[in-house]
Every structure is written in structure tokens, then in C-alpha cells.
């Protein structure tokens, strides 16, 4: 309504304003008053004036150059709207391309002048509690114990899209309880003091599953993937050795060759052997053989997959005979027996007990101080060691072994704030001032950025020796950390959150509509994107490949789903793409699935996804009390496009949806789980769109080309996200100049991925910290007391 009324005004007032702008000559040579202010008067004040204030904005005060400093946030919004072509809106006279560009350039320069005139500020990160993945990784690297914090601790809250933001990571009594019991369990396991119960057996059988036999123990599940593959999920209550008895019913002909049987534990190939398939010669009513394998398994839910691979016999076997026990042999049952005490001393125990604690206090002290230094990720004082050694003495006084006492000291370390938090100190001489963080603090910043884990010996050693600030040393360490397998944390945690990949674990596409959907496909989708990200990272490829690449990572399942021939087997590999149907993040089923509804695609969600996660220009939220737009009846009574055009007739919606929906339409060739399609319901897919700046495109391939032109925006978005993730805090105004400078330098070398990491590490906010004024007035906020 308002907008329509405004359009009527526009011609008249616009002309008057334009006329008046011409009569008042620009004052001085200030480029702002010369180029920016007149455009505001001419192009904007028709609606955004004192009386109408369309969208709640009166533009007139913005003609004052001081507004750049004072109204920065509002200014940023104006720039976004103009750059995105959303303002001036359709129907109003449009500024010429050059006029628009001059305007934007001048404002950007004014922004930068203002930013550079301010004092450099590295910002301040609050003491960071380890989040769940950091906790698990740190325990793994500290003690060699596998611990799934995500299954044990309550979910970490997130802010700015990441779950490592110091301000929102709190400690509740519930979490404290969990910390205490987890520490006891972990320390006991690390010291090899866990008492194993007598072995138990659990058996899983596809056959009894099919015959509807009642569920027995109910502690796991079995399912058949295909004729030669079964998968068991089982909860292992204890670390230990387990025996697996794999039942293979049936037999093949007398001439049948052995077949290769592979076993994967949580996706890792742990066993591969040849299995006899011809009749055994023994008399069975029902032919059957068994294979046994012993594996060391850590506590937790594990997935065991057993498959006959490269099984040529099947190609000649008619499908009706797959489960005919006289004609075929196939895996069918799994019995898990255990736990058995592992052979040999636990590696973790060995590394902790670097001498025999029975030999006396010197050894105990050595063991405890070594552990504490690693657990606290810094040198420890003699007093700290002494206070921990007291636990050992106390244990002995009570008649326990010294080893048990060391276990107790370890429990204490694991619930100590020195372990649970990453705490950085202000400069004791002047806690108010900006200071470079210490080398030790820098070592943890580095390792938690790139590994989500504690610094290793080399890194901590260099920090202790004060060598980490040497530029060559620092770069070499960053390189080493990136090359280490632990940097896959970036694909899991950074990409998992930046690209919202984690949501793939919880999406539930409608199985009635998407018959291909299943756990394997879900896992394959996630793996593709993770490997793709990891590839670009490790090979230092350009960021442009995220937007478009002629390769991807596939296994047989996903290749089949994409309609790509020639990929056999469950292993992922790099595959060069012959067509432009796929390639780049936006052609990946993972991303297309998480940006859809369970039962259909949504151009709105996909468009928003691109704006928010790819271009870093999230659309403004809908105004209050206007419910989000819904697409219905798609493919039944009207095409999606007709439905969407309808709501865009509403000007309030149109300003954002024009762009969101257009981008989303470009991906309409992919259904709600990312499968290629040319029809939606009974309507042909129309994947064409027009961006607000007038560029047309048809289909995903052209959409990608359009996005490639926005590579600088994409890169800046990546830099911002990477900074948030690296620092564990949201970005402030003082970080803008840092982001801008990094993005600019990246452009000169065509945006190689690793450069972002080096740049972030070398940046002021990563290297320094603002002090926090300590005065009598600054009393800490009291938390509820009980």
C-alpha cells in the first residue's frame, strides 16, 4: 500500500528534489557531498523523506558526511539495498549503471576512510569453554581415549552460526555433573583401571528380522543394504576386544570361486579376506558357514558393515535366486561377543606412566607435572604440581595404589577450569591496554582453530621457547597444522556449520515421495561435500571452485543417484564431470536437501541459503506479524512459479523476495533431495530467473556463472565466517578493516583457500587482545545462588 502510494509521489517529488539538488552547488571538493548526497536527494528522498519515511527510513539526515560515522549500520543497509538492485525499486526511475557504481564506490571509500581513522582494535574474546567437539578431540589427543562428548553432554548453544562462541557457551549444573562423571570414566580408562564385566553376546539376524521374531535385547539394529551387504549398529559399553562371528548362510556351485569379504567399522576398512563359497562338504539341512574376526573397539555406538565386494558371481545370478540358499551365499547374521581384555597394555597408560610410580615421589611428580602441562596446555608451576600430587599421597594413605592416585589427580585436572576453559590473561602491568597475546596462548589459538584440539608437543614446545612469533616459524607451523589429518576438523566443524551440513543429520525427507532417500544416501551426500571442502583446502585451490568446479567426489551410490556412469564400489574418489549438471556446492545433493522442505523444494529457502551462506548478504527478516511466505499446492493446481509470482505482487514482500526467489528458481532443476528433474509434478521445470540487477539466467549452470561474478562477495563472506570461527566471537565494527584488507589481498592471487588461513592467523585480532578495564565499579554479575 505504502509503496504504491509512494510511486505516485515519486515522479513529482523526485523531479523537484532533483531540481533543488542542482541549484545548490556542491560545497568544497568532498567526494561525499559531490557524489553521494545528491543521489540520495534525487533517487531516494521521494519516498524516504520526513513525511513518508518508507520502510521507516528518512534519508535526509544521511546527506551529512558525519552520518557515515554516526549511522554506520543504517548506511550499510542502504548500500546493500542499492548494490543488490533492490533500491530504488522496480517501477521507480532507475539510476544508470555508472551513477550507481559511482555512488557505491564513494560510499565504500567513505566507510573505509572512517574505519581507518579509528584506532586499531583487536577486540576481546571471553574465556572460552571447550565445546563438545573440542572436548572430545582434546581428550583423544591428550590421553588417546575416544570419548563422544556429543552423546554425553548437553548441546552447546551457538551464536553467529557457530558453536564455539565464548559468550554463549555456558556451564549449567547438568554439564558440571557430566564433566565430573566423564572425567572419572576417562581417567579410569586412560589408566587402564577399568574393570571389564564378563563377556556377553548379542546376535543380530536378518532372517529373524524378516520372519518377525520378537525383539530381544534391543540394544542395536541390523539392516540389509543389498544382497551382499549388511550393517549392524551396536552399542559397545566398554573399550576392549570383541569377537565378531559373521554368519554366511547358503552355498554356491561346486566350481564357485572364493569371494572377497570386507568389514568396515564406522566407515573404516578394518578387515578384508577371501571367503569360500562352494559347498563345504559337511551335511547341513541348511548350508551355513561362519567367519570370525577379533577387533579392538572403543566404547560407544558403532556401525559395522560387512560386504562381499567385487562379487562377479552375482552378475550371472538371476535376482530371484539371490536368497536361495542352494544357489547363493550371502552375509546374514552377526554375533558380537565381548568385551575381552585387550592384549598388551593400553597405549595411553604406557604414555602416562613414563616411569614406575612405585619408585617414589620423584617419579610421581614427573608423571603428574607432565600430564598437567599437557592438560592445561601451558607450563605448570611447582606449586600446581604439588597440589595435584596430594591426590596421589591421599590415595596411598587410604591404601590405594599410586596408579589409582594418579587417576584421581587426572580426574581433578579434567574438571579444572584450566582444562575446561581457554583462558587468556590481560597484561598484568596494565590490564586496560591492547596487548599481544602470549606465545602459549597463540599456540592454543592456532591448534583450536585448525584442529579443534590442543597444541601438540612441537607447537607447545616452540611457544615455550618463545619462537612462535618468528614469521617463518609461524607460517611453517600453520602449514604443518593444515597438512595434518587433524585439520579435517575444518571440514567437520567449520564447513558443517557454515554450510549447515550438520542439519543433514536431522532432515527427514518424505519417504513416500523420495523413494531413493535412505541412510546411505544421506551419508554419501555429506561425505561428498566434506571431501570437496577438504580437497579445496588441502590443495589450496581457489575459492571459485566452491561456486563451480568440473569435478566432485562420488561413490557408486551417489554417482548412480546423479546419473553418472562408471563409478563402482563404496569408496569415494575424485570424479571429473562430463556435464554441467553438477559441480560446485550448489550442485551437491547435501546442500540442495538441507535447503528444502521435507516434501518439496522451496525457492525461498534456497534463495535465502545462497544470500546468507554464499554471498554473505542475508535478506532482512520479514517485518513483524507478517508470517513467512508459503508455497503450496505445487504441482497440483498451479506451478510453483505461478504461486510465487502471486506473493511477489505484494511490494512489501517483493523487495526481498525478488532476489531470493530468483536465485532459488535457478536451482529448480533439483528436487528436494537434489535429484535432477525436468518436471515438477505435472509442470515442466522453469529454472529461469532475473536478478535484481537485470541479469537473466536459465538453469543452475548459468546461475553459477552469475554467482561467479560475485566472487569477491563470496570471498569476503568466507573471510568473515573464518574469522568468527577462528576467534570464537562475533565481529565488531573494528574488524571490518581487517576483513576488507584480507579479502583484497586474496583477490590479487585469485583467492587461494589456504591464504585465508594464513591471513587470519597473522591478523591483529588473532594475534592480540584488548584488555578489560578492572575497576571497583566493575563487579561481576552474580549468578543465581543455591
Amino acid at each position: 500500500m505504502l509503496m504504491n502510494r509512494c510511486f505516485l509521489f515519486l515522479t513529482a517529488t523526485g523531479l523537484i528534489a532533483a531540481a533543488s539538488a542542482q541549484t545548490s552547488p556542491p560545497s568544497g571538493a568532498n567526494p561525499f557531498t559531490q557524489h553521494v548526497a545528491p543521489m540520495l536527494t534525487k533517487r531516494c528522498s521521494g519516498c524516504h523523506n520526513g513525511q513518508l519515511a518508507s520502510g521507516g527510513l528518512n534519508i535526509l539526515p544521511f546527506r551529512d558526511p558525519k552520518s557515515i560515522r554516526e549511522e554506520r549500520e543504517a548506511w550499510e543497509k542502504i548500500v546493500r539495498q542499492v548494490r543488490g538492485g533492490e533500491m530504488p525499486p522496480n517501477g521507480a526511475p532507475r539510476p544508470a549503471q555508472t551513477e550507481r557504481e559511482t555512488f557505491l564506490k564513494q560510499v565504500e571509500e567513505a566507510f573505509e576512510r572512517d574505519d581507518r581513522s579509528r584506532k586499531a582494535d583487536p577486540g576481546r574474546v571471553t574465556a572460552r569453554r571447550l565445546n563438545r567437539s573440542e572436548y572430545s578431540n582434546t581428550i583423544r589427543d591428550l590421553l588417546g581415549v575416544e570419548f563422544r562428548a556429543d552423546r554425553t553432554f548437553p548441546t552447546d548453544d551457538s551464536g553467529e552460526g557457530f558453536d564455539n562462541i565464548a559468550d554463549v557457551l555456558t556451564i549449567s549444573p547438568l554439564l558440571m555433573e557430566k564433566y565430573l562423571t566423564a572425567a572419572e570414566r576417562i581417567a579410569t580408562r586412560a589408566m587402564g583401571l577399568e574393570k571389564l564385566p564378563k563377556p556377553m553376546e548379542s546376535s543380530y539376524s536378518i532372517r529373524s528380522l524378516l520372519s518377525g521374531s520378537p525383539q530381544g535385547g534391543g540394544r542395536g539394529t541390523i539392516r540389509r543394504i543389498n544382497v551382499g551387504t549388511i550393517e549392524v549398529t551396536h552399542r559397545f559399553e566398554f573399550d576392549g576386544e570383541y569377537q565378531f562371528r559373521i554368519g554366511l548362510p547358503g552355498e554356491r556351485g561346486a566350481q564357485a570361486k572364493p569371494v572377497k569379504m570386507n568389514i568396515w567399522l564406522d566407515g573404516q576398512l578394518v578387515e578384508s579376506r577371501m571367503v569360500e563359497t562352494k559347498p563345504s562338504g559337511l551335511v547341513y539341512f541348511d548350508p551355513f558357514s561362519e567367519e570370525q574376526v577379533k577387533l579392538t573397539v572403543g566404547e560407544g555406538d558403532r556401525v559395522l558393515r560387512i560386504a562381499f565386494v567385487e562379487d562377479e558371481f552375482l552378475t550371472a545370478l538371476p535376482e530371484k535366486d539371490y536368497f536361495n540358499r542352494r544357489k547363493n551365499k550371502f552375509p546374514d547374521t552377526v554375533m558380537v561377543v565381548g568385551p575381552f581384555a585387550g592384549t598388551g597394555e593400553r597405549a595411553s597408560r604406557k604414555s602416562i606412566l613414563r616411569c614406575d610410580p612405585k619408585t617414589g615421589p620423584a617419579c610421581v611428580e614427573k608423571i603428574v607435572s607432565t600430564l598437567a602441562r599437557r592438560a592445561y596446555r601451558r607450563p605448570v608451576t611447582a606449586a600446581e604440581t604439588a597440589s595435584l600430587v596430594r591426590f596421589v599421597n591421599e590415595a596411598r594413605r587410604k591404601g590405594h595404589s599410586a596408579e589409582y592416585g594418579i587417576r584421581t589427580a587426572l580426574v581433578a585436572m579434567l574438571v579444572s577450569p584450566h582444562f575446561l576453559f581457554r583462558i587468556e590473561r590481560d597484561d598484568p602491568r596494565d590490564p586496560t591496554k591492547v596487548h599481544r597475546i602470549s606465545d602459549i596462548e597463540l599456540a592454543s589459538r592456532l591448534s583450536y582453530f585448525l584442529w579443534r584440539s590442543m597444541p601438540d608437543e612441537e607447537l607447545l614446545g616452540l611457544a615455550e621457547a618463545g619462537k612462535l612469533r618468528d614469521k617463518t616459524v609461524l607460517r611453517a607451523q600453520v602449514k604443518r597444522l593444515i597438512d595434518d589429518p587433524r585439520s579435517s576438523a575444518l571440514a567437520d566443524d567449520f564447513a558443517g556449520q557454515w554450510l549447515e551440513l550438520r542439519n543433514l543429520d536431522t532432515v527427514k525427507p518424505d519417504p513416500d515421495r523420495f523413494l531413493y532417500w535412505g541412510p546411505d544416501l544421506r551419508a554419501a551426500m555429506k561425505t561428498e561435500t566434506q571431501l570437496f571442502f577438504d580437497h579445496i583446502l588441502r590443495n589450496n585451490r581457489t575459492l571459485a571452485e566452491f561456486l563451480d568446479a568440473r569435478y566432485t567426489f562420488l561413490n557408486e551410490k551417489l554417482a548412480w543417484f546423479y546419473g553418472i556412469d562408471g563409478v563402482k564400489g563404496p569408496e569415494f574418489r575424485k570424479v571429473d564431470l562430463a556435464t554441467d549438471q553438477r559441480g560446485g556446492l550448489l550442485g551437491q545433493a547435501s546442500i540442495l536437501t538441507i535447503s528444502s522442505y521435507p516434501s518439496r523444494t522451496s525457492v525461498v529457502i534456497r534463495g535465502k541459503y545462497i544470500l546468507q551462506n554464499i554471498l554473505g548478504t542475508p535478506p532482512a527478516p520479514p517485518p513483524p506479524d507478517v508470517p513467512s511466505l508459503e508455497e503450496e499446492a505445487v504441482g497440483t493446481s498451479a506451478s510453483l512459479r505461478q504461486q510465487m509470482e502471486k506473493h511477489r505482487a505484494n511490494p512489501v514482500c517483493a523487495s526481498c523476495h525478488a532476489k531470493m526467489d530468483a536465485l532459488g528458481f535457478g536451482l529448480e532443476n533439483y528436487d528436494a533431495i537434489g535429484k535432477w528433474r525436468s518436471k515438477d509434478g505435472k509442470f515442466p521445470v522453469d529454472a529461469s530467473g532475473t536478478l535484481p540487477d537485470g541479469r537473466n539466467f536459465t538453469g543452475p549452470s548459468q546461475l553459477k556463472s552469475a554467482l561467479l561474478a560475485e566472487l569477491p562477495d563470496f570471498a569476503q563472506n568466507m573471510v568473515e565466517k573464518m574469522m568468527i570461527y577462528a576467534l570464537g566471537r562475533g565481529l565488531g565494527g573494528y574488524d571490518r578493516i581487517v576483513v576488507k584488507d584480507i579479502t583484497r589481498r586474496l583477490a590479487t592471487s585469485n583467492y587461494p583457500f589456504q591464504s585465508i588461513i594464513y591471513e587470519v592467523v597473522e591478523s591483529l585480532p588473532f594475534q592480540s587482545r584488548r584488555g578489560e578495564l578492572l575497576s571497583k565499579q566493575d563487579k561481576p554479575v552474580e549468578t543465581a545462588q543455591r
Partner: protein
Amino acid sequence: MITRKSLSRRTLLRGAGAAVALPFLDAMVPALAASGPKKAPVRMAIVYVPNGIMMDGWNPDYEGKLEALPRILKPLEAHKNDILQIGNLTHNTGRALLDGAGDHGRCSGSYLTGVQVKKTLVDIKASVSCDQLVANEVGKHTRLASLEIGLEDARQAGDCDSGYSCAYTNNLAWRSETQPLPPILDPRALFERLFGDGTLLSPEARKAQAAERRSILDFVRGDTQKLKSDLGPTDRRKLDEYLSSIREVERQMEKAASDNQQIDPKMDKPYGVPADFAEHFRLMTDMVTIAFQADLTRVLTFLVTREGTSRAYREIGIPDGHHPLTHHMGKVELMEKVRQINEYHTAQFAAWLTKLKSIQEGDSTLLDNSMIVYGAGLSDGNRHTHEDLPTLIAGRGGKYFTTGRRIVCRRETPMCNLFLTMMDRMGLQMEHFGDATGRLDGLDLS
């Protein structure tokens, strides 16, 4: 499908299957009941469902005694005399009030805190929630001051609602203005919190474990105090949270020691999160029932699913997400699906009430001695309205509420008035809470 032959089983893990029905044997009621006739305590619970409720299926068209129940309340037919349906309660702080979009984030954050929460993605700020004010008092008498549970995992990635941190939608209870309390989602984790890790220790072993834990907590507390002294205020606040959580764990341990009672819930430790919604709901409320019965806690908040959730309910043949459905734009078939989801939720709630009612406490039942709010932070999920919030109380809170009725308050009566009244019942005499303007009259007719 699975057979499990025990070569040897740990002592506690007995009974067939992970999800056995709970035998409510008198024998399992712990020291409290055994120590002689004592007046049963009042338990307070809040059960929150998201995305509003189809009000045409919620509000009866009459006041007074509950007769024919509207569609969504139908599953509560058997409990008609145990509920009090309240009309016209409003949460003004859920409204925009110049903060723009984000009704879902806002209404969830303000529901129990009664304040307009700070619109931010990072430096979250609300207020101490009413359940926590109660827990600070009555929690002194129980092992766990309060219990927070839910059925849906926090959103893992992306934003939650228009500039509101996910902390507002992931949590209902707030222990301080910056510290939300995360709900437990996994039945196994809830089991461990209530009953320990499933191994029954001898009294001596338990005593030794408690002594060791106390010495460890003493140690880290001392360490933290030292550390705190040379940190800035924001870092100190983090460590204060840590210290206050340590104190709470110590208090729990002291309480457990003085109870001198280890509760055997007579059920297997659950395996994990059931895929089936009703099963998950039942398992969690079964354990809460034991916790109430054994007086392990008297305060519960239950975030059924998150505000803005897009959970689909395939269990009842609804493949579309809950939140998208609630923006039905008047479409008949979509509105019908929302009603089905609402009804499905009340049916699960009704099953819990049945269980609570089956437990005798002296001359009344556990349900009689409870007051359980069931409600939502929005009424019309399509238009995001914050007035006439769907609200009912189940149970009489001791002999306090006269149930079996619908009462309709004056329009725009603050929801906080109800909470203030409930806090009275829990023995707190608060002068103010949130935007309350007074107590709620007419709940008690006797």
C-alpha cells in the same frame, strides 16, 4: 530380530527389552515415604509446545464446568476433572515492541522469564525464569533442584529466528540472565542423571566415591578462586557460572548422602533416543514420574519441541514440517494437519497424566499434588499472536486449584500473573515477577 543371551549381566540390567513398562511398586519409594507419614510435596511443571495451537480446537465456547471438550482437548477427556483451562492470558513481552521480526525466538525466550529478551546472536540476555526462582527455594529439599527435559535436539547450524540467538529457542529455563539451562533429550542421559550410571554400589563404595568427589571439587574451587582474582569482569562471570554449578553439584551430593538412599528405578537403562515420538515422550515422562514420586525433584520444565521447529510427524502420517504447516494461510487441509499435530501432543500429555494419577500419595494422587502447566508461547501460529495463549493447568497443586473448569480472564491479563500465583503455591512470596500485575483470581473455589 535380536536375541541376546547373557553370559553374565550386570546386576541392574534386568528385565526384557530396553523400554519396559515401569512397575510402580511401593517398595521403590525411597526414604522419604518410609520415614513416616509426611505431607506430600507440591510439584510444579511446565510443558511447552511450539508454534501456537489451532485455537478453534482448543477453546470451548463456554465458561465454567468443563463439559464437551473441543477437538484438541479431547484426548484429555478422562482427566476432564483434573484440568483447569484458562483463557485470555497474554505475554506482552513476546510481542515485537520495536524489536522487529522474530516472534518465535522472542516468545520462547520470554515465556518463563517474563521479560523481553535481548535481540542478539551472541551476548544473550533474559532473566531468571520462574521455575528457577522456585528451584532456588524448594530445590533445597531435593537432590536435584530442578529438571529440564525436551524431545528435540537443538538446531545444529544456521540461525534460529530473525536475529535471535538459538539459546532462546533451545531452552526454557534460565538460571541467571545470561545462563540458560539446556534440556536433557536422551532418555539414557536422563536415566543417568536421576539414577546414576546403572551400577548399584555398596554403601561403603558410594561413601568413598563421594569423599573423593568432594576433595576434587574442593581442589578445583580453590584453583578457580585464585584464577578469578586476576581476570576481567566478563571472564570472571564465566568462572562464576562454573563455580555456581560446582556448588550445585556439591549440594546434590550432600543431599544424596543425607538421603542415604540409592534409588533403583526398576527399569533398564534406555538405549538412546527412540525414533518414535510417542515412545520418546513416554520414556521421558516415565522417568520424571519416578523422580517426582521419589522426591528427587519438584520442579520440571519440558520443552516438547523447539519454537519454529520443522519436525515432521510421520508417526501420524504428516510428512510436512510443523512450522511451515502453521503458516497455513487459511488453507483447510493445512489447518487440519496442524490440528492433528496439536491433538497428538495433547494425547501424549494425557497418557502422562494417567500415569501420575495412578500413583497414590496418602489419600490423594501424585497428579493431585502436582500443578502442570501445558501451553504455548503463541496462540495463532499463522499470525504470531501473543494474546489468549493456550493454557491449561493439570493437577490441583495439593488442594489448591478447583479443577474441571474453564475460566476466562479479563483480556490482556499477563501470563506472569499465573506464574506469580503458582510461585505462591510453591511457598515463594514474590512481590514482582516479569510484567505481572497481580495474582490470578478464581483458581480456587473452595
